[in-house]
């Protein structure tokens, strides 16, 4: 497939999941990927979401890092729910349901011998607090395991060095895991009780 043949409509089909097998194969067989894919992708996504903040990066099916009018970079769900600063693990702002027993495991794994072992493992489901209560992430981990921060992008390096279009608000502070700020505030909140 020539680079020019990868247009916005094809990317929209890929995003929506109604792309044909032939087109998938053609895209997979490109020896070099089309260079402007990212910007076309973001255009498709920006048209899809019901809000106006500028998308900086899509980080999962429904979650985006967006630039707010106030100059923040936050995680925002396609439903509009805002999770706060993108440097803090967004999972900490979710609703969580934890499956701990074999009966609960059997509702999502089948047949029974395929189920993880209770005690050694638990299944955590992270839901969006927004109206749609979407399941945003699943973890199958040992009890007591710190919630996994799946992805902290280095947006400044991405836009400057990978894409060649630097962001206007670059700062050395943007690429820094700030999740501990949340857990620290939680501890204070607990101790205040």
């Amino acid at each position, binding site marked *: 497939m020539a680079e020019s043949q990868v247009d916005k409509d094809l990317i929209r089909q890929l995003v929506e*999941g109604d792309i044909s097998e032939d087109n998938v194969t053609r895209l997979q067989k490109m020896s070099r990927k089309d260079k402007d894919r990212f910007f076309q992708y973001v255009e498709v996504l920006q048209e899809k979401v019901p809000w106006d903040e500028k998308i900086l990066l899509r980080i999962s099916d429904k979650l985006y890092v967006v630039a707010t009018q106030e100059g923040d970079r936050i995680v925002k769900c396609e439903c509009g729910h805002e999770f706060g600063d993108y440097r803090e693990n967004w999972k900490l702002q979710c609703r969580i349901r934890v499956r701990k027993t074999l009966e609960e495991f059997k509702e999502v794994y*089948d047949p029974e011998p395929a189920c993880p072992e209770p005690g050694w493992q638990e*299944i955590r489901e992270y839901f969006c607090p927004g109206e749609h209560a979407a*399941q945003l992430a699943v973890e*199958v981990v040992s009890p007591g395991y710190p919630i*996994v921060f799946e992805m902290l992008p280095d947006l400044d390096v991405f836009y400057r060095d990978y894409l060649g279009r630097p962001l206007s608000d670059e700062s050395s502070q943007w690429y820094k895991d700030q999740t501990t700020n949340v857990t620290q505030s939680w501890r204070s909140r607990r101790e205040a009780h």
Partner: protein
Amino acid sequence: MALDYRGSQGGKTAAVPGHRTLRDSVEERDRTTAATGHYYGVTELTLRDSDPIKYERFYARLHSAVLAARESARFVAASPGSREMGECLWGLTTPEGDTLAVSLGFLSHTAIFPVSVRYMASKDYDVNDGIDDGDVFAVSDGLTGGVPHPGDFYTFVPIVVDEEVVGWSVGINHLMENGAPVAGSWATFSVDTFMDGFVCPPMKTGTKLRQSQWWKALWERRTRAATMNILDDKMRLAGCAMIHEATHRLIDEFGIDYYKRAIREVIEESRRMIVDNIKQTTVPGTYTGCAFRLVKYKGLQNIWSHADKNTLIHVRGSVEPGQEGLSLDTEGSSKWGYHSYNATPGGTDCAVFLGMINSFGHNTKVTAGIDLAIERNYPSGSIYNPDNEYTSNANLWAQTIAINSVGFNAVNRAMFSRGYLEEVFSVDGNWGAFQGAGTTEDGTSYGFTNFEWLGGTGRGAYCYKDGEPLIWAAWSQIATIGDAEEFESTVPPLFYLGRKLLKGYCGHGKYRGGVGNSAVHWIVQPGKHVALTRPNGGLSCTTAVGVGMSGGYPAPSSFMISARGTNMSEIIAEGGETPRDARELLEMVDDGRLKVENLEIWKTDCPELAFDENDLFVDAAGASGGWGDPLEREPSAVIEDLNEGWVTSYDFVKNLHGVVATQNKEGEWQLDESSTVALREEMRNKRRQESVSVFDWWSNEREKVLKKDFVPEVNQMYAESLSFDKFDREFRDFWQVPEDLVFENEEE
């Protein structure tokens, strides 16, 4: 084919003052590469740029030599894994062991070549003993050779010109049997290297492209499948001889000076391409993942009391694409232990490079360039880099495949963010196999490995479509499960009653993974003895990876069932139905059609299982993970799954996907649209009711962390992982727990 041996033209390396030794080569490669960031300090691709046609013709000749070696030599082999499947590989390397070209097969094994050569160089093999053109070296040791597990066996043949090693041809395959106390090719219950079976640090076993007679004696006396192993050994050497010959001809044609320069340019060229691919297709940042694996040895290791314990292995990896490639940090993963799942840095590379070569090496020459573009941190003392020279690495692959999945998923997340969705899927890397030994009625003993569920597994869900069954294998481009008859012929008493896809056995989501596989083996005329064990990549007590993709569930791992003492003879005599997969077997036991005196379901390592006439052995493996919120699965796709038999239970899919359907007289499922909309709304409400804020959850869980209120294996896992600073910091920061909270390590 006549292989014309040309060793006399090469001349033996020797301790000639001022002569370039292997040690000189390795040192110069290390120094110049580190100083310049370019392979061997090659900053300009002068040969390529001045005459690109000549350069590509040179490379095409190298590449075709290794491709041809595999396609001819594998027909020398006796083992089905090599002949039929992707369980072998040939390559050509530089004098330092850096890969120039590889055949089809399990390509990431390029990782071990420089480890073996570094060892030979550091021990002065070429100076002390001398290395002659066409010598034959054998390697299967993890520590000195970088080998992922001793079941993988390597043949190295040096190419010597003017008393200097100028390259190595290398052949590899996975043996049928490697002579450990636990029969087969992954000695699952080894507690140290001395139980790993036939393990060879780099050693000279032949000259002039011929193996020595004593070498054959070792296969005969130290393994349980001598005929297959000797033929496989001949296969590796035959391929190496072809590459050796082709390389000499190439050097004659292009000249040694051209050859020496071109091989460095080839590696630098591909390094650049990989770095460029990483920048073109990923997003820089930090991607973190984890996985767990339970080693259940408690009660099974009475003889080796120091190993008689359970270990929950923690696999932790973070990946950071950057300016000059990508880095992988495994800090926080468990320490090494007295079990068979320890890795070595070379063996870990072998796993980690799978995802990296697949993702970034597809449009360039597959060379050591990947080695230079991917920086790895395997902390000393960890399971990836034990600070003990005698650890077992017999079943390394079962565990390191998880760190590959963590890395591969990181790349897939990055490509998702970048918009290259066509490449993005959920990676699990579940595999299964079984192995063992037996003695026939006439007293003939044999050992075996059945590789079938290593040959083909389900591919995880893409972010825009379901995954497919069977068509994927993380470790090879050639996904094939081989012929059932081939495996029946290698294990005389085992007959397949069924070999099929296992309905519903996958990770679910908006898109589901390709379902896994299951087989039922019927034991007929077991002779004096037949017994087996199973070395799975992932056992269902834990999932293969710990983090699902975008709300999808990671794949369930493998399990097995032993059904000993059955009424199979009556069922067969009556012409009754026999079980064809794990689910059918369990159903038949439940409804009484199949009677079993001793039914055991194994979600962890099974001890050796001995079988008698009419016993059944059942396994399931190769499931793959889902993608996205299961409540968003297209209702028509759920109906299709029901009607086509991809899932078994309507209640299961109704409760998972919120889809209501009715069955017509013909048994066909039809969607009830309005009830589906209502049920989905109800399920969203249920999610809200049954969930709590993460703050509330954290507050409660933190109390358990403070009390260490977990099963012993989990506490032990934290004791080990918290001994590495990075994970310790993360754990304490997350739970806000004091330094004096210490998880005790039972061993100390």
